[in-house]
Structure formats: C-alpha cells, structure tokens
C-alpha cells in the first residue's frame, strides 16, 4: 500500500487552477520528484502536503491517516526551502536543535542527535557558526540536517539547489540522494531541472499547467513519454507533425515517416512523430539498404559537446537535431543524409 497518497487534489488561486485533479501514490522510502516548467503547480502541491496550503478538494493521506486537517506543525513533515530559511539568530547547532526542542525530545538527547545529523551532512565543524558565516551550499546542507533531525515522516524539498552554482548543485544532489537512500526516507523533490530529476529520482512526476502529464521511472519518462509535452520537455526530440497514414507511417507536409508505433491511432488522426537526436545516424553519402527513414539535408549548425557533436540539419521543411559521435567530422553546408529506424520513432497525439 502506498505510504503517501494524494487523491484528486485540486487548488485554485482566485479561480485560476494551480493544481487540478492531482493523483499520486508514493511508496515508503522512495524519492519522487516533481518536474515541470515554472508555474505548473509544483510548489503549490508540495505546500499542500506540508500543510501550508489547503486543497480546495481531495484528500491527502499519510500512512493511512487523512492529514488534511492537521496543522503544519503537527504533521511531522520536514521541509527544505529554496532560500534555505535558516534562523539567522541561531547558531547552526541551535537551528538543528530547534526542531528537536519543539518535539519535546529529552534534554540530554538533543545535542547528541543534532551532532549526529550534522555529521551526516559532513559539516560537524560549523556547529557554532551563524548561518551568515556559511556558504550557500553549506547553508542548504544545514537546512537539510535540520529537517532530517526531527526524523520526519516525509521530507519535502522545494528546488533546494536552484540558488547554487552548477558544480555545487551536482555534488549536493548526490549527497541528498545518498542520505535519502541510507535513511530510507520518503522524499518529494521539486525541481524544474530535468537532469536533476532524472538523476536522483526513483520516480518522476512530470507536471504541466496544473496537471500531471506522466508518472514513471526516469527511464520510462525518457524512453516512453506518454505525451508530446513530456517528450519535448525531457531531453530533445525532433517532431514531425502530420496525420496517420496506414498502420505504419505518418504523413507530414513533405515526408512520409515510417514508424512501428502508429497502430494505436486511427487512419487520418493528427499526430506527432518524435525522434530523439541520439537515435539518428548521419551519413555523408546516401546510405543503401536501410529499412527505415532516410532524409536528405544540409548541415546548418555544429555544436561540439564533448563526447558527441550535435548537428542541426536543414531538411527543407525543418531543421533536424542529431547527435553524432565526436570523431565523425562534418562541415557547414555539407550535404548529408539522416537515417532513423522506424522503431526509434514514437507517435503521440
């Protein structure tokens, strides 16, 4: 049975829906991330779980108990904020002890417990400093330690890393995942960074315009997007807009794209055929004997990205993005042929 359940949650602000018919089951000990563009309702959903907002309708259950009417300070749900929100008037240690004191922990256990979580985030030596004497990354670790100290039933993180620079962000997300896995703490992680979401989550909830687009493992979300939004929001996808033509192709303005995934749709349905850049092969000659799609074009842009090179190839109707191994060399304006398998081509409404 699910540990945390959000059943048909909706929330409006001044009649504008911020979250609509949100349904989600979170298993105990898992890290689920909410991923979506700005304003899609991630924070609002998180705040409803924390108790800072009240849903207009729907039920939130934690461990079989309806928590909708429990005030935030009685929910025992930890929260880490984008702006750290450490108490400036308290030392690091006092910040961590605060929650323990509020939970009426025995006096002689408070400081040892605080020290323990401080060790967990590897910042034992900062105990007597004030928040303004710490770097952003350190402050966020302390905020994490503070939230973990009370052994919350659920840990909520709202874009905890977005105020930090790229390098710190990668290190810290690894730390968060390590601690989360060790403590087996049920966690909800809000982010608008797809790489972050894919790299640390057990499951990803992709949101758009107040509703859920898809829930799945990072692999599922990337490999089998259920909607066009997911396909284009996660990673890069080339899209061909057209109508279903027979069982195995999509007809766009200029091309007939062969695909194995059109059978779910009726003949003539308006659809998108989508191909990931890494599924595309690029040839400097016209390839023979290829059972799939071959399109001719001119190299328009070349972006070196380390292990691979990203090419923009003008095929007339549009520019196709393709990733090729770094060792393959192409030049601007070169005539090339792009090829992709009919299996590599997804069809979505």
């Amino acid at each position, binding site marked *: 049975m699910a540990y945390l359940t959000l059943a048909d949650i909706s929330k409006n602000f001044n009649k504008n829906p911020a979250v609509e018919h949100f349904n989600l089951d979170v298993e105990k000990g898992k890290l689920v991330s909410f991923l979506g563009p700005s304003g899609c309702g991630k924070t609002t959903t998180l705040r409803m779980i*924390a108790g800072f907002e009240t849903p207009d309708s729907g039920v939130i259950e934690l461990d079989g108990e309806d928590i909708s009417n429990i005030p*935030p300070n009685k929910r025992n749900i930890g929260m880490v904020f984008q702006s750290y*929100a450490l108490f400036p008037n308290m*030392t690091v240690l006092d910040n961590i002890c*605060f929650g323990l004191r509020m*939970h009426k922990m025995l006096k002689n256990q408070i400081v040892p417990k605080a020290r323990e979580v401080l060790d967990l985030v590897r910042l034992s030596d900062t105990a007597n400093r004030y928040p303004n004497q710490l770097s952003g990354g350190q402050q966020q670790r302390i905020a994490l330690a503070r939230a973990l100290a009370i052994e919350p039933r659920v840990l909520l993180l709202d874009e905890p890393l977005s105020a930090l620079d790229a390098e710190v962000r990668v290190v810290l997300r690894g730390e968060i995942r390590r601690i989360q896995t060790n403590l087996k703490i049920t966690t909800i992680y809000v982010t608008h960074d797809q790489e972050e979401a894919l790299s640390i989550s057990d499951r990803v909830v992709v949101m758009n315009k107040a509703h859920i687009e898809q829930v799945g493992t990072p692999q599922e979300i990337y490999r089998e997007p259920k909607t066009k939004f997911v396909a284009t929001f996660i990673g890069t996808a080339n899209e061909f807009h057209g109508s279903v033509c027979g069982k195995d192709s999509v007809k766009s303005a200029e091309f007939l794209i062969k695909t194995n995934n059109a059978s779910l749709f009726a003949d003539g349905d308006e659809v998108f055929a989508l191909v990931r850049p890494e599924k595309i092969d690029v040839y400097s000659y016209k390839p023979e004997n290829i059972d799939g799609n071959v399109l001719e074009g001119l190299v328009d842009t070349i972006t070196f990205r380390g292990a691979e090179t990203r090419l923009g190839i003008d095929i007339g109707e549009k520019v196709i993005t393709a990733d090729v191994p770094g060792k393959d060399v192409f030049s601007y304006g070169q005539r090339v042929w792009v090829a992709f398998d009919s299996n590599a081509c997804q069809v979505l409404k």
Partner: protein
Amino acid sequence: MKTPTKGPVFLRFLIVSLFVFYMLLPIVATYLFSLATRWDRSIMPEGYTWEAYQTAFNLSYFRITLKNSLILSIASCLVSFIIIVPTVYLTQINFRKFRPLLDLLMIIPFAIPTVVLALSYVRVYTFQPITRSPFLLIMATVVYTMPFMYRSVSNSVDAVDISVLTEASQSLGGDLWNTLTKVIMPNIYPGILSGMLLVFATVFADFTLAKLITGAHFKTFPMLLVEQTQIDGNVAAALSVISFTLAWGISMVLLWFSSKASKSKKAQPSDKAYIGK
C-alpha cells in the same frame, strides 16, 4: 572619488557642523540656563549655581509627576508592543491584503491634531471609571505614538523573510508562541526596540494629551514643567534638563541591555552539555 578635493570636504564639514550646531544649541543653552545666576546682560551667564536644581527637587509635585510620567511611558511602550507586534506579524503572514489598509490607518494619528485627539477621547469616554483616568490617557498615548511603533516594526519585518521563517519553524513543529518568541521576535528585535524608544521619548515629553485628558487627576512631568515656566525660568530649564537626561539615560540603558542580551546569546556555547561529557 579616491582623493576628494579640499572644497567639497570643507563644504561637507560645514554642513555637518551647521546641523550639529542647530540641533545642539537649544540643548546647551537650556543646560547653561538651568545653571545660570543671571543671563540677560551678557553673552555668557554671569555666574553659575545649583539653586534651580535644588528648587526643582524640592517642588512638592516633583516626585509624583516624575513617577506618573515614567508609569505612563513604560505602560505605553508595553501596550504598544503587545498590540503592534502580533498585528504586524499576523498581517504579514495571514492577511497580506490588509497591509495597505493598515499602512493607511497608521497615518491617521499624524493627520489628526493632538488637541482634537485628546478632546475626542474626553468627549467619547464620559463614563466611570474610564473618564479622565490614567488608563484612558495610556490608550490615547498608545494611539498617538502608534505610527512610530508600527513603522519601526513593519520595516524590520520587511527586512527579514518572515513568512519563510514562519513556515520553517512550523515544519519543525513550532507553534505560534514558539515561532513568535524564538524565531520572529529575535529577528525583528532592533525594530521593536527602536519603536519602543520612540514611544517612550514621545510619551515622556507629551503635554497636550495629559493636560487635556487627565489634567490635575494625574499630573505628569511636562505639566509640572509648563507650570514652572510661568513661575521661574531657571527651574523650568532645570526640569527640562532632568527630563531630557532621564529619557536619554533610559534609552542608553535599553540599548545597552539589548546589545548585552544579543551578545551573551552569541557567546554562550549552546553545546556545553555535549562538550561536558
């Protein structure tokens, strides 16, 4: 500007000196006048004496008015604190949209002449035991000085992200009381204190409200002072000096206490228990 030229430096110095002179001259003059024997035929007093102070201390109303004024000022500070701090906090957290209304309301005490405020209080609260009581006076002085307290507190509330701190506290299990006393107040302390100082000084020096509301029932120090101006200028000056010095001294004590309190909190290693083991 690495090396400021002489002209502007001189000009800046002049402006500052003029300002200091403008502010200090009346105070210095009052101090001198309270000590002067005779000061109407020469630039500086002809001689100095403690006589005015002796007379002042021996006035029959000296102690009682001083006590009344202190009670009035301290009570106003406390009432103002109890009313304003939670109001500003809860407005910020729960009723954001009322903030402009509150801002507007807080201009009213400035817009209404003190006399009008006092007389309205007298006219409206005609029933016993409120009418003309020190209690009514406290209510009036609190309203009269409310903008000072409100502005100071709301400015420092704006300077800290109160709502995020509140939510952080709540998520850690803090209830309203603990959130207010352990998290919010320590972070808006300077604003509360400067507001209280302004209230204290203003109420301590108020004449109009006390004169019109309580009158002789509850005589305050400024009332005694005004009385003396008609009898003996030197004694009035001495009383002014006493009043000014007292207000200044109390401010200093308050500031000292607050800085000491915050310092001792920082110095105290809160993990003593842990180290001890």
